[in-house]
C-alpha cells in the first residue's frame, strides 16, 4: 500500500515537473539557451492563480487567465533578455537568465510580501477513496488529468496543425525553415508563449496542492527542471517527459529510504550526476 501511495505521489510530482521542464526543453531545442528564468514565470503563474481565484472564486478561470498572461510575459522575457544575446557565446545568456531569475525572486518578495499568499477558499479539497484505504485527493487527480490533457493537446498541435509543423521545422533546421517562407520570429514567440503558459499552469497546480505561494517557490523547481532536461538529453521532448516522471518517482521513494542521508532536493542531482557520468548525452540524447 505504501508503495502504491509513494508511486502516486511520484506521478503527481512528476506531472508538475513535466509541465515546467517542457517549456525549458522547447526553449533549449529552438535557441540553445538554458532558460533558468523560466521558474520565475512558474512563480508568477502561482501568484496569479491564487489572486484571481480569491477575487473571482473560479479556479479554472484563474488557471486559464494565469496561463495566457504568463504566456505573454514569456514573450516579453524573450524580447528583452534573450533576443539581444543570441549572437553571444551560450554562457552569457545562461548567466543573464540566472541573474534575471534571482532578481525576479526579490521582486516577488517586494510586491507580494515575504510570507506568501494562500487561498481564502482552497479549491479541490476532499478525496476519492479508491480501494482498501488508498486515497487520492481531488487536487492530485486534477493535476494528473490536466497535465495529460495539456500534453495531448500539445502533441496534436505539433503533429497536425500548420503552425505546429512550421514550429517543428524551425526546431529541426531554422535556415531551411526560413527558406520555405516560415516566419521563424513568430515561431519563437509561440515557443515562449506555450512554454511559459505550461509553467504557469504548473505554478497554479503547486499553489493548489500546497495552498501556498511564496517568493522562493521557483528556486527549487528551476534547478530541478534544469536537471530534468539535462537528464532527458537537452532538447528531447520524450526524454524530458520520461526524466520528469523518473525524478518524481525517485524523489518520492528516496525521501523515505535514503532521506536521512541526503536532502530530498539533492536526490535529483545525485541521480543526474550518476547518469551523466555513464551517458554524457543524457537518457535519450543524440550523441
Amino acid at each position, binding site marked *: 500500500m505504501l508503495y502504491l501511495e509513494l508511486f502516486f505521489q511520484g506521478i503527481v510530482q512528476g506531472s508538475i515537473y513535466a509541465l515546467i521542464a517542457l517549456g525549458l526543453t522547447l526553449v533549449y531545442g529552438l535557441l540553445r539557451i538554458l532558460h533558468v528564468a523560466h521558474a520565475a514565470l512558474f512563480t508568477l503563474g502561482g501568484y496569479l492563480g491564487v489572486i484571481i481565484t480569491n477575487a473571482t472564486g473560479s479556479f479554472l478561470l484563474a488557471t486559464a487567465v494565469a496561463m495566457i498572461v504568463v504566456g505573454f510575459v514569456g514573450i516579453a522575457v524573450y524580447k528583452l533578455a534573450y533576443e539581444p544575446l543570441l549572437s553571444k557565446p551560450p554562457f552569457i545568456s545562461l548567466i543573464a537568465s540566472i*541573474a534575471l531569475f534571482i*532578481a525576479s525572486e*526579490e521582486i516577488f518578495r517586494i510586491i507580494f510580501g515575504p510570507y506568501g499568499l494562500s487561498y481564502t477558499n482552497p479549491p479541490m479539497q476532499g478525496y476519492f477513496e479508491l480501494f482498501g484505504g488508498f486515497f487520492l485527493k481531488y487536487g492530485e487527480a486534477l493535476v494528473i488529468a490536466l497535465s495529460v490533457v495539456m500534453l495531448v493537446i500539445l502533441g496534436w498541435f505539433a503533429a497536425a496543425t500548420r503552425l505546429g509543423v512550421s514550429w517543428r521545422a524551425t526546431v529541426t533546421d531554422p535556415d531551411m525553415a526560413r527558406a520555405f517562407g516560415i516566419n521563424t520570429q513568430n515561431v519563437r514567440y509561440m515557443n515562449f508563449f506555450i512554454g511559459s503558459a505550461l509553467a504557469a499552469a504548473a505554478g497554479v497546480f503547486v499553489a493548489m496542492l500546497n495552498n501556498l505561494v511564496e517568493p522562493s517557490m521557483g528556486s527549487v523547481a528551476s534547478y530541478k527542471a534544469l536537471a530534468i532536461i539535462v537528464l532527458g538529453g537537452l532538447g528531447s521532448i520524450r526524454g524530458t517527459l520520461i526524466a520528469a516522471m523518473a525524478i518524481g518517482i525517485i524523489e518520492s521513494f528516496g525521501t523515505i529510504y535514503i532521506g*536521512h542521508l541526503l*536532502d530530498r532536493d539533492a536526490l535529483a542531482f545525485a541521480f543526474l550526476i550518476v547518469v551523466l557520468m555513464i551517458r554524457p548525452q543524457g537518457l535519450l540524447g543524440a550523441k
Partner: protein
Amino acid sequence: MAYEITLITTMAISILFALSLNFITGFCGQISLGHAAFMGVGAYTSAVMLKAGFPFLFTIPFAGTFAGLLGILVGFASLRVRHDFLAITTMGVVFLFVGLVRQQEFLGGEIGISGIRGSPFGRIGFMYICLGLAAVFAMFSLAVKRSWMGYVFASIADNEDISRVLGIDVSKYKLIAFVVGTSTAGIAGALYTQHFRFVGPDSFGFVESVTVLAMVIVGGIGSVWGVAVAAAFLSVMPLLFQFVNDFKILVYGGLLFCMMRWAPDGLAGIVSRWIKRLRSTS
C-alpha cells in the same frame, strides 16, 4: 577601526575566492556554477579541526587538500561533459553538497557549527594573513597567465578540439585548473571559518556560487585585476550601503543581468575599450 578591519578582511577573502574561480572559468574556460561547494568543503574541514583543537594555520592545508580532492572529482566530470552539461553538473555539485551537509550530525546539520574560537593572531594579524594570501594568489595568477601554461589554458578555453589537434593534453590541463582553483577556494573557506567563526549549509549554496561567478564576470572573465577589483567592490557593497544590504540579491541580479546585456566582457573590457579610445583620439 574594528569595522575597517572587518571590511578589509571580507574583501581579501572574496578576492581570493573570486580569483580561484577565475582560474577555472576565466583561464581555462570551464564554467562552474557550484564553486561555493569547494569553499564550503574547506570551511567545514577547518571548522571541524578547529573544534577538535588543532591550530588555525595547521587546518589551512587540510582545507585546501579536501577541497582539491573534490575538485579532482569534478574535474573528471568536466572531461566527460561540456558546456551546458558541465554548467548543470557543477550546479548539481553544490546542491549535493548542501543536501549532504544538512543531514550530517557531526557537521551540525541544518544549524551548522558555531562557537569557533577566534584567531590567535588578533584581528589585525588575521587581516594581514588574508591580504597576504590573496596577494600571493593574485601574483601566482598573473604569472601563470603570462607563462606558456596561460597560453595553453587560453587555447583550451577558445577551442578544445583545435587544442587537442595541436597536441595539447587537454584533460591534464583541465584537471590542473580544477585542482588549483578548487583547493584555493578551500583555503578561502578556511579563512571564512576563522573570520565569521560560524559555518552553516546555507552559507555555501547556489546563490553564493552565482555571487562569486558574478564577481568574475563583472570584473571581466580572465582578467586578474578586473576580477580582484570587482570582488573587492561587490563583497563590501552590502556592508557599506544599507539599501544594498536590504536588496542584496536584487542588486546582484540586476547588475549581473545589465552587465551580460550591455557589457559581457566586464570591467576589464570597458577599461580597455576606454584606453583604446583615449589613444586613438590623442
